[in-house]
């Protein structure tokens, strides 16, 4: 083995190393792109602001926009009026927004009232936030949004606010 390695011209050895690096890069890219499993997310059942358990499966078949947020997260609150607008406009087309609040119930109730939230605000806590990690939220930061197509497959994940134009162009392809 050693002698084979010694006999290889240097350029060839370098080329092999280069190709291995490429293979690793491509492999990682493909692995990174493999669709995340949404079954844990869809199996989730969380209390709404009234305390009633809401299973996420009830919205299966719709384009589902799951937004992890909190009142203590200002960028989260800033993007939510657009979600309210989109729910009003796109709800009849089969789009359902669901907020999972990593927060205390009273804060969520107060903010939902101020915003006149027209989609469910489920109270998740930090345990629910952990569910966003395998979906791409490696740092467990907020806001984090997952858009599922009608078959429950991930169409988009987003850490940080969604621009309204971006939100609409993604959803338009799914409805």
């Amino acid at each position, binding site marked *: 083995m050693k002698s084979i390695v010694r006999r290889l011209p240097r350029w060839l050895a370098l080329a092999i190393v280069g190709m291995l690096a490429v293979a690793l890069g491509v492999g990682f890219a493909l692995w990174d792109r493999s669709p995340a499993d949404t079954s844990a997310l869809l199996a989730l059942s969380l209390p709404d602001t009234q305390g009633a358990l809401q299973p996420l499966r009830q919205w299966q078949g719709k384009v589902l926009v799951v937004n992890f947020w909190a009142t203590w997260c200002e*960028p989260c609150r800033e993007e939510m009026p657009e979600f309210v607008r989109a729910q009003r406009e796109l709800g009849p087309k089969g789009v359902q927004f669901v907020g999972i609040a990593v927060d205390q119930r009273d804060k969520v109730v107060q903010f939902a009232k101020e915003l006149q939230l027209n989609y469910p605000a489920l109270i998740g806590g930090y345990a629910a936030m952990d569910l966003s990690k395998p979906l791409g939220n490696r*740092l467990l930061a907020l806001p984090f949004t997952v858009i599922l197509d009608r078959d429950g497959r991930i169409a988009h994940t987003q850490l940080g606010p969604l621009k309204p134009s971006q939100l609409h162009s993604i959803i338009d392809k799914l409805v």
Partner: protein
Amino acid sequence: MRWPDPHWGRIVAGIAVAVALGAASPGTAQVNPLPPDKAFRFTARLLDARTVEARFRIADGYYLYRDKIHFAVEPATAGLSVPKLPDGTVKEDPFFGHVETYRGEVVVKLALTDPQPGQRIVVVAESQGCADIGICYPPTVQRAPVALPEGSMTPVPASQGPKQTWFN
């Protein structure tokens, strides 16, 4: 080896393709924020036998909320009096009203009420902050060990402080 070697072009092109593939994963937002312990680096050092200086070094583009910073010591028997946090930058939040934030650096003096000579304590800091790119981190707990001086509890000069910590 000759330079430029024709194969180098292929190698470089191959790596470029791999990098491009990695960067182009569709459907994922391209933000690369720091993990919270890097965005808000926490350290603690001994100032004298009864005082620890706690410090957050906040990366550019990140900020911490003043009212979300809490300290504790382990073991709790070392005792910690309620620290005075420096004034932050006032911001009017539409939901929470008056809030104060820190950027750059926050330095807080922590007074121990019942330290034991030679005791090894851990300063526990909870903080919560956000990044200007529009994300916030949940409350993060960071820990920094500090070794209290052996022997008499007479204050040591501040300049010798860092040598007493586990970090230096």
